């Protein structure tokens, strides 16, 4: 019953919201903060997506690079922006997942400060070697490293980056000793790789495939479109990367508001329609067939890894990047309170008439908080009523609300077992002064309950609102399948 009331009001609220949405987002230029220097994979992806979003929205999308400091300065800047959706952030798994996991204190909270809008690209990490290096496969590399422990070295862009962790993980899994060399960015590491200052590097496939044809291991369940064929063959045969990091990087909370979801849809369109985006970013939606195919390949790779390395290898190692928006904080200091509202008793004149008509048409005993809150704004409830009245009178709102509520996807949520709520029947009496009795039958018959005289006395003073015949009639007008 309660959800039925809420349902009706939800659709009403949204009808109003939809009508109001004529002032469409975005109405001014949007900024995307990239917390890395220009030219990196994240920056390239942001520029491709920004260009496509700009076309889609008809508004300029400006990319601002705030690099360095393990992406922290970029995230702090985004955190300080107004949470109005006009400042977005290219979040990465390194900034949003790895940093909080490995640093004691970071000046942002990835879960509460930002709203995740949608994935942008997945950049498989690969181990690359100089063209002149003698290794042809990853097995050659492992053999060489085992033969001369500590002689080989590899470059990575900064401590705690996904490249760094991937390299360390590879060393652990393969049981080899390779010397790590830290660089300010992957560009410098690649330069030294090409100059033969270092033998190996771990980096995203986008950058390294442009500079080197010797990608030793691209670990992805799907063939990466830009990886050389040899690397893809090598990929299928070797290396084991830990499931630990895979899980750590893979998990993220998608916390999206309505505007965020709309922007997510906007993100999907350019990715589907733009050939460059499609090539740059591997599509995430593979469908059931694609997933099965990937799972079969992953199993094959695991079996081969067990044969070569003696333990279970994992399917992929990659950087994730997603568009992120600033969100309002979850908790505010200060006393808990409800927003200002006009109570039904205090409403008079036109407001009271509108409230009464809303209750009658909606078949509900009280006016929803959203309307009582709107009534505090000058002309608010009159405007909402003016917009909604036709659809309300024709029953379209009620029908839509009913349909939507019944279609709510409850499957992903663990149901509350009925046994868990069983103790409620024997719970102590309600608070004194309440207008509801702890024993509904007693409240209905208005007899004093032996267990809670206080609330029953109160209920006599404040009779329980009854649903009018007309209200029942409005429900009866709904199609049968919706009434159920």
């Amino acid at each position, binding site marked *: 019953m*309660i*959800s039925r009331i*809420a349902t009706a009001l*939800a659709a009403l*609220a*949204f*009808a*109003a*919201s*939809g*009508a*109001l949405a004529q002032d469409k987002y975005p109405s001014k230029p949007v900024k995307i903060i990239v917390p890395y220097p220009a030219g990196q994979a994240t920056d390239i992806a942001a520029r491709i997506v920004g260009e496509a979003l700009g076309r889609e929205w008809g508004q300029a999308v400006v990319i601002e690079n705030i690099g360095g400091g393990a992406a922290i300065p970029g995230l702090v800047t985004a955190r300080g922006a107004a*949470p109005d959706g006009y400042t977005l952030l290219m979040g990465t798994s390194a900034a949003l997942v790895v940093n909080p996991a490995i640093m004691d204190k970071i000046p942002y909270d990835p879960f509460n400060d930002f709203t995740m809008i949608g994935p942008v690209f997945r950049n498989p990490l690969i181990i690359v070697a100089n063209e002149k290096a003698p290794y042809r496969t990853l097995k050659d590399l492992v053999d060489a490293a085992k033969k001369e422990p500590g002689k080989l070295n590899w470059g990575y862009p900064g401590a705690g980056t996904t490249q760094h962790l991937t390299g360390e993980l590879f060393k652990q899994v393969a049981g080899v000793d390779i010397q790590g060399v830290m660089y300010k960015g992957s560009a410098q590491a690649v330069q030294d790789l090409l100059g033969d200052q270092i033998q190996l590097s771990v980096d995203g496939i986008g950058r390294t495939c442009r500079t080197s044809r010797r990608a030793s291991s691209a670990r992805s369940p799907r063939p990466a479109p830009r990886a050389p064929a040899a690397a893809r063959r090598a990929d299928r045969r070797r290396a084991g990367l830990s499931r630990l990091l895979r899980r750590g990087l893979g998990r993220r909370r998608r*916390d*999206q508001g309505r505007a965020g979801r709309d922007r997510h849809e906007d993100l999907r369109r350019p990715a589907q329609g733009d050939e460059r985006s499609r090539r740059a970013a591997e599509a995430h939606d593979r469908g059931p067939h694609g997933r099965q195919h990937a799972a079969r390949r992953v199993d094959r790779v695991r079996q081969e890894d067990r044969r070569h390395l003696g333990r279970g290898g994992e399917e992929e190692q990659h950087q994730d990047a997603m568009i992120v928006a600033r969100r*309002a904080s*979850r908790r*505010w200091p200060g*006393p*808990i*309170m*409800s*927003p200002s509202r006009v109570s039904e008793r205090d409403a008079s004149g036109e407001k009271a008439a509108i409230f009464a008509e809303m209750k009658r048409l909606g078949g509900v005993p*009280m006016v929803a*908080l*959203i309307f009582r*809150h*709107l009534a505090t704004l*000058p002309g*608010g409830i*009159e405007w909402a009523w*003016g*917009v909604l009245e*036709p*659809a309300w009178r024709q029953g379209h*709102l009620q029908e*839509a609300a009913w*349909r*939507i*509520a019944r*279609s*709510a996807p*409850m499957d*992903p*949520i663990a*149901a*509350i*077992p009925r046994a868990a*709520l*069983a*103790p*409620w029947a024997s*719970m*102590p009496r*309600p*608070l004194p002064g*309440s*207008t*509801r009795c*702890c024993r509904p039958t007693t409240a209905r018959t208005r007899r004093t309950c032996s267990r809670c005289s206080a609330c029953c006395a109160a209920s006599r003073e404040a009779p329980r609102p009854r649903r009018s015949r007309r209200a029942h009639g409005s429900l009866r007008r709904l199609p049968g399948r919706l009434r159920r």
Partner: protein
Amino acid sequence: MIDVAAMPRELAQLLDLVATPGEEGGPRVIQSLYRHLGDRPAFLALAVTLLRQRLEDGSVERAAGSLNAAMGRAADELARSLSAPPAPDARMRRVLERFGGAVIPQMIVVGRLLEEALPQR
């Protein structure tokens, strides 16, 4: 329905666990459903305990998100047949977005969860 101003401290602390954030620096929203249940604090405590895990693991929010999208589509369809003069107050948009985008979808999902867990009459 329990009055927020007259709410006992223990109850306020309980509802603090599930209240929805409002505008930055502004009041938080205690959903009416919880206030309806507020006159049965023991039941409310049980319900909040059972709901919290589902609220924190994001599953309620995901379901509310899907619902929100469906509501947006339905509202767009309905809005075609409605005429909307400019809103008289710019704050209205924020109110509608806050309630329609977060509070109401979440409470539909929570309401259905509780409804399905209660014994059928």
